């Protein structure tokens, strides 16, 4: 994430420069009223962090149980995105275009760009962590893009039970007293085809506070969302890697999902012009 961090600093400099030239425009003028017959774009940036630190692979962090750990894989599905305006109108991204795999190892994947969004002042974003149960039982032709098991989704699918892995995190910890001190979280479970089983589909609602994301045909706001991976280990239940380093398709995987559903927080939104990103 260091690169991204630097680019932020750089971007902040640019923004500051722009402000110094056009401060009266930026500060005093709200954007024009939304014209809902027009559309624009919005970017949801998922910035993985570890507490107050930027998150990066192979860097050591400490979980709530006091165990040090490093990470080598981190990816998760974000799907079924909807946006709510300040007046309460909900815009739902068409389902076929609403599946994204955020993969820490693929920098471009952390920015989810949504196009053809009606102009509006959006105050809230809602999404699913994982893949909804309806899509999870859809035929192969409905599994494109992030859901293509021979493409982006190749390591995010259990072929023996036709289920997507919603959230995958792997790494190692000296606290794990095994020959290989690796931990593996492969969390999924959409509820089952014909018989009920675990359902780890989680939904997230984030308020953007007092500054809405003002989508206009010429303004593509960037909503900066933090994903605190330390929260994977605590909140609902404190995870001790020493006790169990492996959470896959099992009842106990629910503990991890109930933790990570609270790892997202809204940080800030960029509405202003220089949207070169």
């Amino acid at each position: 994430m260091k690169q991204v961090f630097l680019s932020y600093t750089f971007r902040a400099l640019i923004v500051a420069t722009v402000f110094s030239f056009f401060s009266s425009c930026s500060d005093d003028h709200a954007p024009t009223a939304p014209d809902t017959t027009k559309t624009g774009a919005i970017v949801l940036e998922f910035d993985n962090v570890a507490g107050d630190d930027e998150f990066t692979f192979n860097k050591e962090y400490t979980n709530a149980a006091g165990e040090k750990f490093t990470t080598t894989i981190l990816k998760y599905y974000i799907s079924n995105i909807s946006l709510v305006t300040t007046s309460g109108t909900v815009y739902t991204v068409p389902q076929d275009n609403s599946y994204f795999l955020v993969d820490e190892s693929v920098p471009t994947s952390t920015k989810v760009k949504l196009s053809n969004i009606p102009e509006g002042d959006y105050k809230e974003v809602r999404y699913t962590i994982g893949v909804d149960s309806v899509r999870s039982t859809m035929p192969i032709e409905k599994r494109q893009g992030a859901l293509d098991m021979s493409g982006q989704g190749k390591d995010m699918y259990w072929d023996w039970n036709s289920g997507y892995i919603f959230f995958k995190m792997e790494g190692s910890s000296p606290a794990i007293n095994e020959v290989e001190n690796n931990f593996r979280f492969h969390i999924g479970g959409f509820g089952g085809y014909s018989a009920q089983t675990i359902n780890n589909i989680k939904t997230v609602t984030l308020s953007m506070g007092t500054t809405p994301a003002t989508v206009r045909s010429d303004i593509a706001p960037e909503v900066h969302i933090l994903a605190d991976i330390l929260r994977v280990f605590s909140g609902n239940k404190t995870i001790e890697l020493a006790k169990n380093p492996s959470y896959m398709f099992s009842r106990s995987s629910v503990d991890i999902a109930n933790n990570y559903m609270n790892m997202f927080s809204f940080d800030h939104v960029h509405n202003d012009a220089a949207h070169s990103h």
Partner: protein
Amino acid sequence: MKFIRPFRCMTAQKILRLSFIIIIPFALLSCGETDTAINQEPEKIEFIIPSNFPAPVYNISRNPITTDGFILGRTLFYDGILSRDGTISCGTCHQQSAAFAHAAHDLSHGIDDKLTLRNTPALHNLAWQKEFFWDGGVGDLDLFAINPIQAHNEMDETLPNVLNKLRQSAKYPPLFKKAFGSDSITLERFLKALSQFQLMCISSNSRFDKYQRGEASLTAEEMQGKTLFDNKCTSCHKGTFFTDLSYRNNGLTIRNKADSGRAKITLNSDHLYQFKVPSLRNITETAPYMHDGRFSSLEKVLDHYDKGVKDSPTLDPLLRQGTILGIPLTAEEKRLIIVFLATLKDDTFLRNRLLSQQ
């Protein structure tokens, strides 16, 4: 080549009632057609619903079966290119002469001779199956093949690699073009072609089928066996496919605790050691039996139901009548039931050259 419709009793009205394309699958072998006829490629491969079969579960309109799609699927089915080192094809373990089960193997062995967990199930009438594998983990035929391709003890290959190998081959791009209109090789096309071949593995010309359609009669002994079977076995092995498609614990001793059966999929302890009730079609050809292939003969299977059923918390209630476990059977009853089961053998299917490696 003149193509012969196998199901003469299907009326025009019945055909019209079917909501999808009526298609014609097989050159008939059993009635003494000449070998020249069966060695030729068909003019047209078609999927037809035998008149004694219900409507399929698989939605054929999503994947209309064409001659070129079928041929592509068959080529893929018998090609080791699907495995990491080229040695294992679908047909390695799914052998036509054994109704696409693995003859004489309790557990199948895949790549590097690694043993699998379970006995290879027979493949037939898959359009009428709603779930796949002994534990029913996959609910869509199109998604079924991904597992054996990727399993480390079966083909041990990845989907991106398989597709790339197909793209780089001289053989496949033209086959995909013929089947789907362009040489683009996608996962969807790959899996649908495999499904087209598997969907055409229809077994519907056993002597029992002909009896059901009023085209043939069974012998007195076979009828006696049928009566016994109807009284003692059809609670689970019911209907045209001789399975209610449910998952049951039939009282086998636990040999491999790690294989929890249906519970592996549902994570429900009520489903421990339940496995799918298999179809009994072509059962005389698919030995050995059970999910782990522990019984080498039908006699041993019936001995198990007679005297071998072990009690456990998830034993199927049908196998517990008061204090009696299992299904008491005399030696003569077992013999007659096996005589009846032999009528489920479908030579047309087992020897259909259209389904064979070319």
